[in-house]
């Protein structure tokens, strides 16, 4: 399996990382080097094997459905690049 340049651009968009035209061929080479490294896994017999969903055998713990946190808006906004009142500011999303 290998990727073409159009796929590299599509992956970059899915990952929301801007890539310049100059960077695409180099990235294509790198991605293909890694894909060819992992290619051999296609031949492994995984018939009847469950994918690992829990690293150590344990059930996902539950807790009581009560409010245990909150009223920390100031802390949540403390590292924000741009805020106004109690909001994060971003460029317009909807036309």
């Amino acid at each position, binding site marked *: *399996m290998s*990727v073409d340049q159009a*796929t*590299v651009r599509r*992956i*970059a*968009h*899915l*990952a*929301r*990382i*801007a*890539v310049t035209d100059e960077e695409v061929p180099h*990235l294509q080479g*790198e*991605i293909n*080097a*890694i*894909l060819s*490294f*992992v*290619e*051999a*896994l*296609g031949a*492994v017999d*995984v018939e009847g*094997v*469950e*994918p*690992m*969903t829990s*690293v*150590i055998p*344990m059930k*996902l*713990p539950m*807790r009581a459905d009560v409010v245990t946190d909150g009223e*920390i808006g100031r*802390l*949540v906004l*403390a*590292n*924000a*690049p*741009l805020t106004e009142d109690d909001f*994060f500011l*971003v*460029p*317009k*999303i909807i036309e």
Partner: protein
Amino acid sequence: MTDLTALTLAEARDALAAKQLSSLELTQAYLSAMERGRQLNAFIVETPEQALAMAQASDARIAKDEAGPIEGLPIGVKDLYATKGVHTQACSHILHHFKPTYESTVTSQLWRDGAVMLGKLNMDEFAMGSSNETSYYGPVASPWLPPNWSVEKARAALRSDKRGLLVPGGSSGGSASAVAARLCLAATASDTGGSIRQPAAFTGACGIKPTYGRCSRYGMVAFASSLDQAGPIARTMRDAAIMLRSMAGYDPKDSTCYDAPVPDYEAAIGRSIKGLKIGVPKEYRLDGMNAEIEKLWGQGVEWLRAAGARIVDISLPNTRHALPAYYIVAPAEASSNLARYDGVRYGLREPGKDITDLYEKTRAAGFGEEVRRRVMIGTYVLSAGYYDAYYVRAQKIRTLIKRDFEIAFADGVDAILTPATPSAAFGIGEKGSADPVEMYLNDVFTVTVNMAGLPGLVTPAGRSAEGLPLGLQLIGRPFDEETLFALGEVIEQSAGRTVLPQAWWG
């Protein structure tokens, strides 16, 4: 004045308890050492005021006989641990100026037990790397001199681009270099594919990645959530055991954390290993394996046998699939974990004409090349049409890898002895520029342990022909770190404790 930084963590602890020494004196000695060693670039943030304040508070507690288990002992903290009010960026530009408003569980436990924070340690960006060369803050130099280099040549390289000086390994390169250079008593580190164990092996230090779930991941900048685990790097087995006891423990804020008491790991140091069954897996003997590494492995077997262990050959047939499967699973999980860095709520923001443009420009400017590479691979293998062929398949192979170990343990094997790294440390700038996979091969002996969620310990065991440190790895049963410490201590005693390099750097 005697060199206070020559004391191990255990020796310093005992000296403080016997009131032969104050935490203030010890901390000042370490702050001086850090200043002399600044060009190694192990510390990226120094916190001297905080360190001195913590040392004074520790001295007050010691005076009142209220000392905690690691009271007054100065340590370094890897940059991916959230330290309240202090720079925490996982050595990435995308977390520019991030100062957490909360503390990670692991570090809060270290402060609870009395440790003193010297500063934040350099690492590969987002823990992605095996040489500390992907950090936004530049590479870290190992305190070990490259073979045949004069001190003058090394100092000149240290002042310029560091090329040719030895890598300390990665991603916990700052932690390993600082410990081996005696810039701190011990350091916190983290391990996703070998990031504690490989740097420990490269620098002649001890490191342990405990069982997945032994330590809380709350407040650790996440790379791959099913593989990441916290652990210490220290100068001796005893020091590592003391650190792990304070770092480990159940935390309800981490839903993957295991709820079981933390043993006194130090009590396992010196415990007899008579009758323990040690597995030697044939699949770890690679084609074209470095003869020195193979010889050291055999020497390790003999040391354990001489101490009363029984040695058995075992087979872990799916070993060769672990590295490729890791390079699907880890980037996939990373692409999900790193989606949060979008320039909106914290860190770097690059202006954009609309929200998508803001995301794309911020992430392009903020992520280094290795991170970008892994996020894109991860995005690809999780995308529609490829998810089953890559990610699900790799997770099935993970089940097979884990099953190999379970079969060995069910057969009565108590621990498994393997090499730690395929070679001794290499030079800064030497690997990976042409082919990213070349760097990945450094992890070949270590990733299996993260894939199976087991504990893995590395102890120095010998030197290469050129005098560089080489380590051995012990892999244990889930939550049986004590057996690993007992075995590691035997190797440490048999090999003789590492003589760390004398300061040539300042």
